[in-house]
């Protein structure tokens, strides 16, 4: 089910938004409206939906309307037109009390500038959301402590925000959002104010938390690497409109227009990067002579459901799934007969660019072979993180 569903959402800043809306619907451009009436179109007839448990990233240049869009979702900004369903209920039509209740229970937000209350300690900042709901002190502090621990800030409960570093303050912001226990997290450039190392750490932590807690996250960034790393799907915004939505691969492979391809030009390093740069040694390998029984044991130990098979000389032979291994063992079939060879291959020098599309489709990692010998494997994750980390390496070299 869609957690958030936005249909035809428009926000026009200015004195006569309804008039501006008419012009927009007549097909006038944002720039013309600005010139003619002085009104700014923040978000222009935008639709998208976010599924439960998904990290949906919105990316775009400065001024493209990202902050406006995310603030429309919890109605910090009043929309001019359109519909925003949160769990099926239209937030744009809610009365004041229902809106407040929805913000309290369903929508927690993390801000670029942290937005911490400077006169309160870390603990009472994190407990703020519960405090205004009237949760009693003992309980809200217990929950607050728990989420302070979750973000790794244990021991700092009594500190004030101005005693903490930027990264720590943003952790407090995150803890505050988590303490509310809402399904949806709205994050507006939450990591943009942090330096690169801390930023990466926070991204990893967010992914961790997401794995554990299964939140639905609407994440704004203007950083492509961050988008690739975090986003299950990515939407690209321009002039208040979403010009493309898709997975990282879809967008890298088939940019919808020049704006998007300019945006992803940054990842042209994917053309420079080759398979050998991102491949990894497979965790477990099965030797040809091991036999199906050993295969089952090895897979069990490693907690995987398939395993690559090689011979003595490390020549790649195929892929064995656990089902097939059990079958071979029970029915006493030779292992060669159940090996799959439908995996995708690459040579160490294959450009990463060529693999992006493949990785998205295939269930199994891509196998890198050279002269028939297994060199390594490449998963979807390592392609994407290769794109991201590749840049970080460049930065280290050049500095």
């Amino acid at each position, binding site marked *: 089910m869609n957690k958030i569903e936005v249909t035809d959402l428009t926000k026009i800043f200015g004195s006569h938004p309804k008039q501006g809306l008419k012009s927009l619907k007549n097909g006038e451009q944002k720039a013309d409206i600005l010139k003619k009436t002085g009104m700014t179109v923040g978000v222009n007839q935008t639709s998208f939906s976010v599924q439960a448990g998904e990290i949906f990233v919105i990316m775009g240049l400065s001024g493209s309307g990202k902050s406006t869009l995310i603030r429309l979702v919890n109605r*910090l900004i009043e929309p001019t037109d359109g519909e925003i369903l949160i769990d099926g209920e239209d937030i744009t039509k809610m009365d004041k009390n229902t809106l407040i209740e929805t913000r*309290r229970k369903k929508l927690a937000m993390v801000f670029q500038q942290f*937005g911490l209350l400077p006169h309160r300690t870390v603990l009472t900042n994190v407990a703020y959301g519960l405090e*205004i709901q009237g949760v009693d002190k003992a309980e809200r502090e217990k929950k607050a402590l728990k989420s302070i621990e979750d973000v790794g800030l244990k021991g700092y409960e009594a500190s004030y925000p101005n005693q903490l570093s930027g990264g720590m303050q943003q952790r407090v912001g995150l803890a*505050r959002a988590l303490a509310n226990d809402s399904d949806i997290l709205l994050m507006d450039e939450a990591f943009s104010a942090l330096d690169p190392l801390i930023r990466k750490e926070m991204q990893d932590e967010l992914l961790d938390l997401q794995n554990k807690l299964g939140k639905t996250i609407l994440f704004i960034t203007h950083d492509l690497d961050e988008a690739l790393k975090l986003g299950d799907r990515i939407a690209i915004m321009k002039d208040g409109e979403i010009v493309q939505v898709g997975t990282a691969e879809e967008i890298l492979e088939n940019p919808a227009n020049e704006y998007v391809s300019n945006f992803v030009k940054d990842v042209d390093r994917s053309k420079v990067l080759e398979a050998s740069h991102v491949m990894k040694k497979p965790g477990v390998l099965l030797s040809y002579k091991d036999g199906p029984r050993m295969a089952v044991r090895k897979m069990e130990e490693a907690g995987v459901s398939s395993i690559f098979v090689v011979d003595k000389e490390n020549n790649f032979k195929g892929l064995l799934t656990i089902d097939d291994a059990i079958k071979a063992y029970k029915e006493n079939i030779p292992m060669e007969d159940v090996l799959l060879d439908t995996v995708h291959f690459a040579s160490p020098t294959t450009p990463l660019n060529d693999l992006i599309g493949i990785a998205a489709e295939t269930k199994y990692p891509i196998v890198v072979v050279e002269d028939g010998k297994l060199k390594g494997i490449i998963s979807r994750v390592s392609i994407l993180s290769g794109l991201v980390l590749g840049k970080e390496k460049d930065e280290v070299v050049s500095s």
Partner: protein
Amino acid sequence: MNYFYFPLEDWTNHFVNEWLLPVMSGFFNSISTVLRAFIEGVTNLLVVVPPEIIMILLVLLSWKIAGKGLALFTLIGCIFIGSVNLWEAAMQTVSIVLVSTFLSILIGVPLGILSATNKVIERMMRPILDFMQTLPSFVYLIPAILLFGLGGVPAVIATFVFATPPAVRMTNLGIRQVPSDVVEASRAFGSTSRQLLLKVQLPLALPTIMAGVNQTMMLALSMAVIASMIGAPGLGSTVLSGISRVNVGLGLTGGLAIVVLAIILDRITQGLAKKA
């Protein structure tokens, strides 16, 4: 220049004498009664309690809020006021200052909150406050006498009107200065406007509001002195009789006592503003 006669003076007098006084006198009388009781209560308290006790309390308060230096100054200052026989007059002045400052805060802070949260109210308040602050202070005395007679009550009313603007302005300013990202965060988590005000805006505006209270109190002190012209008891009337009898010594001691009071009140409220 007088192409025609503009009878503003006559009109005003007519309005006041024929309408305001006969129709509203009951209303003004009841305000007067309440206020008189209030002022007398505070004055009696300050005069009945032995000076030594008030002095000790003041010294301790100064110490706690502004440190040793002010405590020492307060001690010497109080002894000085007592030794020039002006203790009672000083307490009368202090009670007018306290009562009118209290009223100024009571009315001014809520008005400041309203103008911080409502653009229309702010736009209406601004010219009124400008007018109140630019009018020479003794102009307030005339309507005060007319409506409330002579003595402490019109003094408090005039002082209250004169000293309220900074309380309104600084409250408004303090709330508007609260960083917008903090306000936004608080709203995003589902604060009602009341929770936003009480838990975020007022606490963060408090230092600025206290600076306003300090200004209000200083204005109130200066006005309380001037109000001796309409029969307010206290150090102002000491100075006034010094002037009318050409008694330079009396004028000087009264003036010095006022300075001492001003310094003590100023430093204490400034200290409070810093602590807030």
